């Protein structure tokens, strides 16, 4: 087949990963012992569509694994199996394995086959055990499990009851079948798995070679299937081909009649949802509800391998971020042009000037709304990040023998996609930290007069122009004395020095600092909070901690809503203007000459609060001619990056403003100490300082 299926791979992966997330969250919501049918159906649909898709694309390992999983899920769906804690764990593990398999296929990396095989074995065992249980109902066993020798067993008892039936299947694909990602061979193979299959191909539709379109399907098949399965099992095989073929399933009557006699023939020219549903109602007896559900979701997007989203179709479209960024850029330009016009307008005089100014004011308002609107398009709810925590907390508390209740609030709070992507890992770190170090074991908690189950609370909300995310726990809180002792031991704090509480708690963000008595595999290696702080700072945010011994601690992360805009302080050095991000600035001050000391005749330092801070002359680092070389004639701006503070010497402060960040790398390259550029109101370019980079760069230069 000449069709290049690869063009559909990305869409398949994207949708499959999304579907797995749906499946995971459904599994977590599943009640042990009393599963909601709707959830079970959702889970089943995901497995089914991933199986179909991966088989189509030839990802045989994934298909085989999901096939086994689907078999098990079908047992669940039919109520022939109970949802136990163990089974739910097994299913969650299967989600992980499927995710890994798909990822390895996507990136063409090898996968550990043993792990997959082990899990598949466990799944098969679970199916087998159910069949040995007396509760096993003699219902249709659907499809045979994966082709391993012992897995063939469970279908045996059921076979004897229903008996063999012969089905005449007319399968006439429309030309576009192949283009929709359907492989007739796969369909035939799947039918073959159901029983013995006689295949007859109809080539009457085949045009002359010269008229043939390589991506069209011209063949049709007449099939006779001898199997014990019901009509809808056969119809299910063709699920993905709905709308792309004419399907006729007729039973060849020979002896055994069914309980409810289905109509003798069902012609299925599908494509319109309602028509399809009607067909399902006629054909189905046993599994009406899920099949109809499926029909609905497929009617919307005919036969591309799109995993059903559990009815969460919210009328949205998928747009590449690139397109949004383009619009964002254009809007940024409009903002600049508009501010240029406003400046011009304010200096105009004459009878029309007032009209012009009011027009410009109107324009300004509209442009601002447009900018906010585009920015909102890039915003996603933080639930995208929060959704991974229920699973994580469940697994961790299991492993550590703790009882933990996870509370998520404010998960509809929206923030920029880029920020969202980068805040996930730091949050995971913090939650792990809370579970491992914060929450105590149930007996200790009870002894302390607290509820046995600890609470980890993630809360997100807007505050000012920022978003705040809190990770709160009601655990043991930080041990002030232990941190101080540890810090003294490591020489971070002098033996006689007594820092205030905030300074002590700040120490836990120092690199390699851990007070855990023993290292666990969850946390305690001392890698962590310093990385968390660095990540947060890279996003232009801040992190703080509040804690009370015995009551718990709370980490508060404050983040900008977007990375496209930064609140900046403009400073002047000579004829140049630079923008310093506001979040990095601690204080600005004027120095008296007496406050500055020299170290070894070179490095200048001055006393700021309780420590000496080096002076970095911006004009020196950037090679600009300054207005003044005298420290007391200019201004010193105390800035902080990666935990280091320096006093940045500039000529003057100009003003604060929000600026749109533009990349220098698009047309040029990365420049040390500069994170980007922006366009000022007069159309000129100003560089935005990368404060941590600048501090590093200045230190290297001083050392050289």
């Amino acid at each position, binding site marked *: 087949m000449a069709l290049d299926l690869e063009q559909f791979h990305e869409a398949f992966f994207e949708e499959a990963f999304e579907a797995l997330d749906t499946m995971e969250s459904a599994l977590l919501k599943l009640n042990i012992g009393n599963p909601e049918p709707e959830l079970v159906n959702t889970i089943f649909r995901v497995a089914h569509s991933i199986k179909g898709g991966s088989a189509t694309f030839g990802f045989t390992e994934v298909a085989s694994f999901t096939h086994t999983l689907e078999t098990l899920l079908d047992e669940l769906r039919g109520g022939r199996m109970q949802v136990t804690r163990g089974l739910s764990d097994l299913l969650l593990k299967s989600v992980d394995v499927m995710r890994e398999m798909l990822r390895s296929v996507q990136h063409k990396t090898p996968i550990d086959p043993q792990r997959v095989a082990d899990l598949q074995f466990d799944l098969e065992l679970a199916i087998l055990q159910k069949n040995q249980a007396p509760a096993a109902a003699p219902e249709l066993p659907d499809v045979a499990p994966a082709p391993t020798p012992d897995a063939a067993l469970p279908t045996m008892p059921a076979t004897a009851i229903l008996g063999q039936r012969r089905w005449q299947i007319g399968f006439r694909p429309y030309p576009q079948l192949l283009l929709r990602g359907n492989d007739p061979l796969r369909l035939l193979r799947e039918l073959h798995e159901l029983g013995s299959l006689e295949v007859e191909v109809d080539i009457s539709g085949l045009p002359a070679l010269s008229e043939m379109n390589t991506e069209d399907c011209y063949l049709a098949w007449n099939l006779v299937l001898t199997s014990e399965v019901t009509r809808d099992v056969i119809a299910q095989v063709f699920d993905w081909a709905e709308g792309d073929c004419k399907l006729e399933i007729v039973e060849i009557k020979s002896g055994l009649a069914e309980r409810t006699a289905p109509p003798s023939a069902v012609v299925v020219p599908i494509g319109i949802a309602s028509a399809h549903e009607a067909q399902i109602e006629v054909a189905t007896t046993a599994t009406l509800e899920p099949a109809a559900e499926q029909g609905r979701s497929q009617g919307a997007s005919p036969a591309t391998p799109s995993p059903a989203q559990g009815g969460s179709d919210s009328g949205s479209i998928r747009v590449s971020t690139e397109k949004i960024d383009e619009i964002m850029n254009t809007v940024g330009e409009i903002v600049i042009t508009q501010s240029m016009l406003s400046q011009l307008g304010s200096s105009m005089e004459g009878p029309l000037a007032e009209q012009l100014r009011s027009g410009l004011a109107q324009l300004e308002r509209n442009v601002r709304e447009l900018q906010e609107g585009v920015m909102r398009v890039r915003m996603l709810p933080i639930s995208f990040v929060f959704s991974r925590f229920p699973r994580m907390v469940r697994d961790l508390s299991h492993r550590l023998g703790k009882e933990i209740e996870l509370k998520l609030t404010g998960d509809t709070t929206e923030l920029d996609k880029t920020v969202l992507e980068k805040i996930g890992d730091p949050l995971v770190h913090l939650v792990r930290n809370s579970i491992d170090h914060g929450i105590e074991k149930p007996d200790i908690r009870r002894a302390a007069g607290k509820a046995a189950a600890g609470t980890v609370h993630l809360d997100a909300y807007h505050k000012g122009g920022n978003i705040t995310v809190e990770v709160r726990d009601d655990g043991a809180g930080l041990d002030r004395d232990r941190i101080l002792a540890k810090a003294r031991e490591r020489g971070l704090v002098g033996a006689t020095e007594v820092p205030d509480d905030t300074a002590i708690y700040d120490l836990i963000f120092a690199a390699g600092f851990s007070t855990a008595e023993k290292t666990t595999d969850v946390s305690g290696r001392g890698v962590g909070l310093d990385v968390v702080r660095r990540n947060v700072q890279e996003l232009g945010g801040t992190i703080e901690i509040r804690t009370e011994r015995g009551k718990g601690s709370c980490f508060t992360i404050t983040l900008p809503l977007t990375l496209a805009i930064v609140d900046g302080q403009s400073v002047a050095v000579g004829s140049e203007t630079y923008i310093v991000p506001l979040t990095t600035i601690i204080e600005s001050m004027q120095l008296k000459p007496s406050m500055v000391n020299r170290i070894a005749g070179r490095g200048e330092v001055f006393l700021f609060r309780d420590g000496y801070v080096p002076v970095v002359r911006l004009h020196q680092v950037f090679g600009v001619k*300054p207005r003044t070389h005298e420290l007391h004639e200019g201004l010193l701006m105390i800035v902080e990056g990666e935990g280091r503070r320096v006093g940045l010497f500039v000529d003057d402060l100009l003003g604060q403003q929000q600026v749109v960040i533009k990349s220098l790398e698009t047309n040029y390259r990365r*420049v040390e100490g500069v994170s980007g550029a922006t366009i000022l109101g007069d159309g*000129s370019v100003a560089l935005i300082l990368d404060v941590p980079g600048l501090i590093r760069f200045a230190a290297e230069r001083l050392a050289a």
Partner: protein
Amino acid sequence: MMEGANRTKQVLTFILGMETYGVDILLVQEIRGWSQVTRIPQTPPHVLGVLNLRGSIVPIVDLRMRFRLERAEYTAVTVIIVLSVETSSGRRDLGVVVDGVSDVIDIKAVDLKPAPDLGSQVSTEFIQGLMTVGENMVMLLDIDRLVGGDIGDVVMPPKVANG
């Protein structure tokens, strides 16, 4: 490079000191008057800085300094030719500062003569070829090479300015 000896292409010619250079007109985005640029730290001296060109930040190169010609004062007639070049890392724009633009000419591939090797004192690496227009010699620039070896990669050794 010799795609049909009779194929013609249009070349924008411009003046640098006493010399005339040319660039493929398809690479030219716009021609604009000189305006003050924003300086960028840690760049070679001929990269003057960056300008805002319709919302994107574009580096500006002084071709006189690039070719080690005598430096000229920037006046009202100094122009910036904005070029758009395809590089390995995508499309890049850059502006080159020249004394003035002169003409658009049609040239045939056969008219293009290779630059003779003038030894180490004169660099011909950015010259794609020479041609004669009227009584003048025009040097056709190899912009791809100019951009590839110049703007993107070369980093001058850091040098501490004396403050």
